[in-house]
């Protein structure tokens, strides 16, 4: 029988094995402690490959086309951040690029880097650091918030011009779904259990 300390309230509890598709909650504060995710590695790999394809589409194709008095202008995901940069707001531009382009891309690449080798029973170089970085990138990936921003901007602009959503917009919506599903398909225990156990550790005998 092994022990686990809740990461939110530090209560010591005994681990129990879970039925598939369920999660264990802390008995005192209710924090989610661990999950049992069927086919976790296959799911994670599949979703990150799908994510990579959608990410490329979302950044290469035009996001929105804006038609006013016969003129049509296309904008990509990056052109907004570039416009901010040109106005001298490089901090805000950097934040937008980090949260909507760099963090999702890093998340996808790290998922592939960690879980493709795991699928073939190998551990990639510096797995622990890569996994912690992945968790960090998940926190800073804010593409779902960006999507709400797009909807608000659309409402503001439909009175001035005709807005045509581009291919990138649909890819972006897909990317949100795929990355959310990918993040919740990850079972950290699968990664950590590959690391050597030290028998003298308390609660692991």
């Amino acid at each position: 029988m092994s022990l686990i300390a809740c990461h939110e309230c530090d209560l010591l509890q005994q681990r129990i094995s879970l039925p598939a598709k369920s999660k264990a909650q802390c008995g005192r504060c209710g924090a989610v402690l661990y999950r049992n995710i069927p086919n976790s590695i296959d799911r994670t790999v599949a979703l990150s490959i799908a994510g990579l394809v959608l990410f490329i589409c979302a950044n290469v194709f035009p996001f929105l086309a804006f038609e006013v008095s016969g003129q049509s202008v296309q904008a990509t995901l990056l052109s907004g951040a570039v416009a901010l940069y040109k106005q001298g707001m490089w901090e805000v531009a950097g934040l937008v690029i980090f949260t909507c382009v760099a963090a999702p891309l890093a998340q996808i690449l790290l998922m592939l880097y960690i879980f493709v080798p795991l699928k073939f029973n190998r551990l990639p170089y510096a797995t622990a650091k890569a996994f912690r970085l992945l968790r960090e990138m998940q926190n800073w990936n804010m593409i779902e918030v960006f999507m709400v921003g797009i909807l608000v901007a659309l409402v503001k602009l439909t009175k001035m011009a005709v807005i045509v959503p581009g291919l990138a917009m649909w890819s972006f919506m897909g990317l949100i779904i795929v990355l959310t599903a990918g993040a919740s398909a990850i079972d950290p225990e699968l990664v950590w259990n590959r690391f050597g156990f030290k028998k003298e550790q308390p609660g692991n005998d």
Partner: protein
Amino acid sequence: MTRLPGSIENVSAMQAGLVGCHSCDLLSKIKGNDHQMLQCPRCGASLHSRKTNSIARTWALVIAAFIFYVPAMVLPITNVSSLGVSQSDTIMSGVVLFIQTGSWEIALVIFVASIIVPMMKLFILVYLLISVQQKSDKRMRDRAKLYRLTEFVGRWSMVDIYVVTILIALVNLGVIADIDAGPAAFYFAAVVIVTIFAARMFDPRLIWDEMND
């Protein structure tokens, strides 16, 4: 959803002389008094029983966020100039504009995400800090839920920054008007980032330490 049954007489890991790794959940023994420099034997993360200087650091970031909040609300977030007429909008006047043009749903989204959420988050953190400092042992579960809420909602405040970015990208490429981001965009982004870090600096385990004493 399974609740773990076997809590061992409400003993925290720290009281049992153990520390759980924040990264891989492995329990290690605390050796000696200085348990700040230990490394997790399995994954190599540094081990802390409690986050270092959590209360002082969280207070510092909360106060910084309150300070940034003032210019974020008072200064203009967009300057629109169209046919020689220019107009500056703050976050609040943008909300009013949406109500006047009949899109009250959008007004509500911006009002909640930009004004309510950052303020609520900061006041929740102030309440948690004060209750921990006063060693309160009341409503621990509710406070744990409040903390989880602050971690979850903080990111949604970024909506207004994204709206401004998209407006600039589209409108400046066209010919009808010019939109510039105002100085409030910087301060507002600072509020969002600083509150995200403030919520992270706070250690929710401090809420429960009174119960264990």
